[in-house]
Structures are given as structure tokens and as C-alpha cells.
């Protein structure tokens, strides 16, 4: 018999009212605006866009505000929003080689064409709390210098010219591109699907997985060949217009990991690659992604796949924080009936145990 239990409506309504009140906090303190979140907590916005898998700064800022700063809750809100809009199609692949670079570093070559450009970075800060930020901080205007006109080619392109690094995998024009938001995931999954999964995967999970490869669980000897952050143009072939229309530009971070060699009797040895790409300035995320991407190529490269980061089913099934939090957090919802049946079973087992041991106990007492 199925028994519906009701009665929580008023409590739920009042709980949400209380939440709205708590979210606002002390009303003597000015309310935070979406512009403030977008401008001053920009990296949180970048993370919500990346893992929410939706590029829209304003929506991500709204989600952060609504979620009281809980970024996984904000990512959940953004994912739910994207399900309400129709999809017009897919963009032309962006050209990260033509990026208007705001930061670009390589740990493999000191003198790369275009140079080492630090940009806005936490690197080389002393990680000391700065009391001057507590109130009324006005930063100095940024320094300026003559901007170079020479291009900044990708480091992997430079290595590729001499055949020192494997080329990127090609696809025929018009070949279908896997989309895990449209088709259920099957294993083994191709690299396009793996990268889509990692691009929206949880930064903390990918960081731990990437870290595990460095500590020896699927070691692949990485160097950060290049990390670049900046703006790229997006173009979309509009069916109604019949040609590629510019949509504007987006900020992306790209990481090219250069890893140890592959080669065979017929193929000269060369470096292998792992790739990371994410919305906004998401350096830790793209570095971790590139480490994991490379680890997941173990089978393709004929390596022993023994470590968690090399197991694509494990990685891809656990990388999504919206799925993960849904399943973990559902445990707090009412499981009264489930639990009653477990309780009934446990009582029965205990009775059986008591019955089975009762004669022994009496016998022992008699002895």
C-alpha cells in the first residue's frame, strides 16, 4: 500500500522566507549588486560559468547572490536555467591561437615568441592578508608599455614544427561532435566527450585527480608547456542569414601540458599532450583538466591503466558536481518508508539472533 504523507507545506514556505531573510543579512549593510559580484568576485563568476557550462556573467553573478555564495548551488541554478532556453546551434570552433592574450606563460621555454606575459596573477604574491583591502582601497592605475605587434603562437605549435610533439587529433569537416548534454554517456568515450565532461567538471575533483597523477597514481611527467588567458572571438553560422555571424568575444583560459614520450619501431619518439580549456580565468581548473585529459589517454597510448585518474568511467562518472551533490544531498530528504523497512528487517534479524543464542545461553548458565 502506498501512503502519501503531507504536512510540510507551511514549514517549507516559512523556511524559504527565513532563507531570503538570512541571505540579505543585516539590512543596515548595503545590498550587494550583480555588478559588484561580477566585477569584484570575477573568479567566482568564472567558475560558475565554467562548471554551470553557460557563458553569461550576469546570470552567474545572480546565481552566486541567490546561492549566498555557495558556488555549487550557484552552478546548479545556472544548469537549471540553461534547460529553459532553446539551442540555436553550435559555434565555429574558437581559435585560441588568435587570442588577445592577457596572460601567457610557459614553464618549458624562457624565450618564447611573444614572451612571458604575467598579466593579472596571484603568482609571486606572498599570500599575506592585506589589511588595506578592508576598506576604501583605491588601486594604482596599471602600468603601461608599448604593446608588441608580433603574434604569440602556441608553444605546442612551435614544438610541433620540429615534430617533437604529437600533432593534435584531426577530424573531417562536418564530422559529428559528441555532446553529453544530448546523448547519454557510453564507455569507452571519445576524447571530445571526455574534454566536454572535464570542462564542466568540478574544479576540486579535477584538482585532486590531477594531483594524484603527479604523486605517482598514473604518473605522466607533465610540464606546463603553456597557459594562456584572454579574449577570443566567437562566430556562429546562422542558418537564417546563411553566413557566419560574429557573436562577440569571450574570455578563456587554455593549458597545454607537455608530457613524456611515445614512440614505436616505426614512429620516432615525441612528447605527448594533455589539454585544458575553460571559460574565464580558470588556471587551476585548466591545468588540472590537462593533467587528467592526459591520464585518460592511457589506453590510447598503450600505458598500463591502474590509477583512478586513468579510469575514464570513474573520472567521468564522478566529475560533475551537480550530479554528485544531487545524489549526496538527497540523503537528507525523507526516507521514512525506506528506513522503516530496514528497521523492520533489523528487528527481525536481532530476534533471530536472540532466538538462536537463547538455548546456548541457558545451556552455559546450566553448566
Amino acid at each position: 500500500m502506498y501512503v502519501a504523507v503531507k504536512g510540510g507545506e507551511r514549514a517549507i514556505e516559512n523556511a524559504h522566507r527565513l532563507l531570503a531573510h538570512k541571505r540579505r543579512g543585516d539590512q543596515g549593510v548595503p545590498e550587494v549588486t550583480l555588478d559588484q559580484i561580477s566585477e569584484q568576485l570575477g573568479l567566482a563568476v568564472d567558475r560558475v560559468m565554467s562548471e554551470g557550462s553557460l557563458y553569461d556573467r550576469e546570470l552567474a553573478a545572480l546565481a552566486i547572490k541567490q546561492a549566498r555564495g555557495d558556488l555549487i548551488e550557484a552552478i546548479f541554478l545556472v544548469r537549471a536555467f540553461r534547460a529553459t532556453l532553446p539551442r540555436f546551434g553550435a559555434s565555429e570552433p574558437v581559435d585560441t591561437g588568435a587570442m588577445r592574450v592577457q596572460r601567457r606563460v610557459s614553464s618549458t621555454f624562457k624565450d618564447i615568441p611573444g614572451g612571458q606575459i604575467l598579466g593579472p596573477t596571484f603568482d609571486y604574491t606572498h599570500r599575506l592578508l592585506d589589511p588595506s583591502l578592508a576598506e576604501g582601497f583605491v588601486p594604482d592605475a596599471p602600468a603601461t608599455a608599448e604593446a608588441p605587434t608580433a603574434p604569440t603562437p602556441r608553444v605546442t605549435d612551435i614544438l610541433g614544427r620540429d615534430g617533437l610533439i604529437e600533432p593534435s587529433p584531426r577530424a573531417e569537416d562536418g564530422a559529428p561532435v559528441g555532446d553529453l548534454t544530448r546523448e547519454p554517456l557510453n564507455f569507452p568515450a571519445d576524447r571530445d566527450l571526455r574534454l566536454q565532461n572535464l570542462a564542466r567538471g568540478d574544479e576540486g575533483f579535477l584538482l585532486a585527480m590531477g594531483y594524484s597523477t603527479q604523486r605517482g597514481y598514473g604518473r605522466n611527467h607533465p610540464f606546463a608547456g603553456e597557459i594562456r588567458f584572454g579574449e577570443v572571438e566567437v562566430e556562429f553560422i546562422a542558418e537564417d542569414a546563411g553566413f557566419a555571424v560574429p557573436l562577440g568575444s569571450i574570455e578563456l583560459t587554455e593549458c597545454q601540458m607537455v608530457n613524456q614520450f611515445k614512440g614505436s619501431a616505426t614512429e620516432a619518439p615525441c612528447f605527448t599532450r594533455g589539454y585544458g580549456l575553460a571559460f574565464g580565468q580558470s588556471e587551476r581548473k585548466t591545468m588540472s583538466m590537462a593533467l587528467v585529459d592526459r591520464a585518460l589517454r592511457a589506453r590510447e597510448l598503450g600505458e598500463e591503466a591502474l590509477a583512478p585518474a586513468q579510469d575514464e568511467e570513474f573520472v567521468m562518472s564522478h566529475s560533475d558536481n551537480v550530479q554528485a551533490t544531487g545524489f549526496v544531498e538527497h540523503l537528507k530528504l525523507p526516507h521514512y518508508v525506506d528506513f522503516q523497512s530496514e528497521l523492520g528487517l533489523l528487528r527481525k534479524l536481532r530476534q533471530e539472533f536472540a532466538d538462536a543464542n537463547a538455548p546456548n545461553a541457558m545451556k552455559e548458565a546450566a553448566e
Partner: protein
Amino acid sequence: MAVLAQAEAGEIAARLRNLALDSALPAHQDLRAPENGLVMLRGRIGGDGAPFNLGEATVSRAAVRLASGEVGFGYTLGRDGDKARLIALCDALVQSRDYGGAVERGVIAPLREQLMIRRKQAAAETAATKVDFYTMVRGEG
């Protein structure tokens, strides 16, 4: 159109209004009312390889037809339907013999100039963070 997609709706509207002061803009109608949706953004494996789906972006689109028949399409990142319609209107006007030059001169060129100034400033700020390596000469001999 790349310039318009980078501009704010208010900036495009203000410049079109200025244009209309000299000669009234032609009658036009919505061929497609502004509509919000998503475009799946694609990257390439390794930066230059096979495409993969990176994640979606919000996009607004509209289409406008002038009384004289020219059809313009407007697409832009974000959810600003008014901006999509303004881009579509500019796209249509640019094709018209009567207004093409005026829109190019009065709307697109100044917005392009603004964009270039912003980009130049950003590039100069970035350039100042470029590392100049130098070698320490050891005090030997």
C-alpha cells in the same frame, strides 16, 4: 557587425538616434522578434585539432526588414533582445543605398574607434607585465 556585437545596446541606439536627426530612418518591421537562446561554444582538442563542445553561451537574435526590402540579421552574446534588434537594423541599413554610408560613418566607425581604444589600453597594460629576462654577470676574474 563584429563591432556592433562588442558594443552596448545604449551606445548603438544613441548613435542611430543622432543619425535619425539628419534624415529619418526608413520604416522597418520585425522579421523575427528578439529571441533568447543558447549556442554551444566549441573549442579544438589541443587548440588546433578536432572540435569538442566546451559549454553553452546565451545568445539573443532578431531579424528586421526595411520597407525598401533589405533584410538584416542581429546576433549577440547575452540576453539583450533590444541589442540584437539594433544590430539587425544596422545590418539592414548598411545594405541600403540611402543609409549604408551614413550608418558606417555615424554608427559603426565611431564604435570601432572606441573598441580599438579600449583594446589598445588593455594591450598596453598587458605588455607592462611582460618579463624582461637578464643574465647576472658573475663577479669572477
